[in-house]
């Protein structure tokens, strides 16, 4: 192990350089020292793991090849040590696809991978990577699990009315108009505040209370969404139903009954089917979905591409909308592999005569790319996050008035994109 003291009066903190190549690690360490880091240099997995266990670092560079071991093993160790907030610069002589997949591994582990550098090293890029400010970190640290949430606590939450819905607008990518909203389950607790759906949905699936939550959310979505639908012809409200629930043959009638009570037309509702849990009985799912469709209710295949049997479900079930999962959409303009999935998903949807919605549109660049690829509808933070009813109403009104007064900055290239189609 070797250390290199910073060559500046000020300190930017501690840098850990992990590289099995003597020349490369010497160069990176020296660049770090000139930038104001005190650098610790590790040439093996074992040295690096020892340093990570005993010391704190402000940034780390990691070569994916570490002799007998590899950098991905070290990424797992970093996750186990809960060093999720430490910025990590990946360095490798491997091909681009390996680098991209490594970035995805880092994302899955909730680590703060800031960028990938390829060998031979471009020294400007090394310097820029080590200077990356903390706010440029691409991946935020993950949420910790919530203690004390069991079946009893969820039942109490259902009876106390702690679950409610927020609406995320869906925007027509051709006209820029808001054409619908997805109702999303939210949980506000007295003891933890708002609990993330990423935490409570799996807990509810495990507790067997998903049917109860689904009923509650469908009722709330239709009751709250009625106002949005009434004022806008063709506007739709989407609700999520887990694929595991498509065994309840009474579901179409229950939904129809809620629609009738609230005076909402079946055509205004879309049931989005997620496949985080494999559908246990495809024959029953076909029965349920076809009856929903006969009643005029829309059916959407949600999180497309990530489920257990997306292609089989697409071929056999009567969906009329395909929602491309946000993991493929976010940053697709910078990732050719993801863009291929987006384009192939659009082609598949077209072959089945379905509309395509892209989830996770967070930037104007992503918007431009998915519009160019031919997506019909978009959803994402670039337009709006999920909002309470009053706020989503206000958002839609303001959005519509912007559309009336001329092309919004987001849709400024509308004409040229339509011409390109």
């Amino acid at each position, binding site marked *: 192990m070797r250390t290199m003291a910073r060559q500046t009066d000020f300190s930017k903190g501690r840098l850990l350089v992990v590289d099995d190549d*003597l020349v*490369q690690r010497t160069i990176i360490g020296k*660049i770090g020292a000139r930038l104001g880091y005190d650098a610790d240099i590790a040439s093996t997995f074992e040295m690096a793991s020892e340093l990570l266990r005993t010391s704190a670092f402000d940034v780390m560079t990691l070569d994916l090849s570490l002799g007998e071991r590899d950098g991905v093993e070290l990424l797992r160790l970093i996750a186990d040590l809960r060093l999720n907030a430490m910025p990590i610069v990946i360095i490798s002589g491997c091909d681009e696809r390996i680098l991209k997949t490594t970035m995805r591994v880092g994302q899955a582990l909730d680590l703060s991978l800031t960028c990938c550098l390829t*060998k*031979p*090293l471009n020294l*400007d890029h090394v310097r820029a990577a080590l200077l990356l400010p903390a706010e440029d970190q691409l991946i935020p640290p993950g949420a910790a699990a919530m203690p004390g949430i069991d079946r009893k606590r969820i039942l109490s939450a259902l009876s106390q009315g702690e679950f409610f819905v927020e609406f995320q607008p869906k925007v027509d990518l051709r006209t820029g108009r808001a054409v619908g909203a997805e109702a999303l389950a939210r949980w506000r607790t007295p003891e933890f505040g708002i609990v993330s759906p990423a935490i409570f949905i799996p807990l509810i699936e495990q507790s067997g209370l998903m049917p109860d939550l689904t009923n509650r959310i469908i009722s709330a979505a239709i009751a709250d969404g009625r106002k949005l639908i009434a004022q806008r012809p063709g506007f739709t409200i989407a609700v999520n139903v887990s694929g595991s629930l498509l065994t309840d043959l009474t579901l179409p009638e229950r939904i129809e009954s809620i629609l009738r009570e609230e005076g909402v037309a079946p055509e205004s509702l879309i049931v989005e089917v997620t496949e985080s849990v494999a559908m246990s009985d495809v024959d029953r799912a076909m029965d349920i979905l076809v009856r929903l469709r006969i009643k005029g209710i829309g059916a959407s295949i949600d999180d497309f591409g990530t489920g257990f049997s997306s292609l089989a479900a697409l071929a056999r079930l009567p969906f009329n909308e395909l929602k491309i999962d946000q993991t493929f959409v976010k940053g697709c303009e910078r990732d050719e592999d993801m863009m291929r999935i987006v384009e192939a998903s659009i082609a598949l949807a077209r072959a089945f005569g379905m509309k395509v919605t892209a989830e996770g549109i967070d930037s104007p660049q992503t918007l431009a790319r998915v519009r160019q690829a031919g997506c019909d509808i978009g959803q994402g933070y670039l337009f709006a996050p999920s909002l309470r009813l009053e706020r989503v109403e206000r958002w839609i009104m303001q959005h519509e008035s912007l559309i009336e007064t001329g092309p919004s900055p987001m849709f400024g290239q509308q004409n040229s994109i339509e011409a390109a189609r």
Partner: protein
Amino acid sequence: MNRLFDETVFHTLGAELGEADALEVLRVFLADTADKIAELPANGEPRALIKRQAHSIKSSAATFGFEDLSGLARELESSAETMTAAKLQDCLAALRQAFETTRQFARANLLQTRIGASS
């Protein structure tokens, strides 16, 4: 067509690290690469070892602008596992020769004419 040395690449290294540190890293490179070349198996096996060493030499040599050496290492890395034994021996000999030429050039033109002359 390959060249022995791309001066602009080495100047970039000098600008980034400062001349003294650039020369220190150059000495590290020459010593480390000499070790790697010596470790290359004379009988051409195992080829995975040759590929790994070639991979490392390729990247490091390119960092200093030693284009001939980097190019030969790249060729060896990409084909070491598939080329015939005779071709492999030719490539290993060419790599050893390119390193020797590079080392003599560096000693005569880079280390001897700058701050590092005393070492």
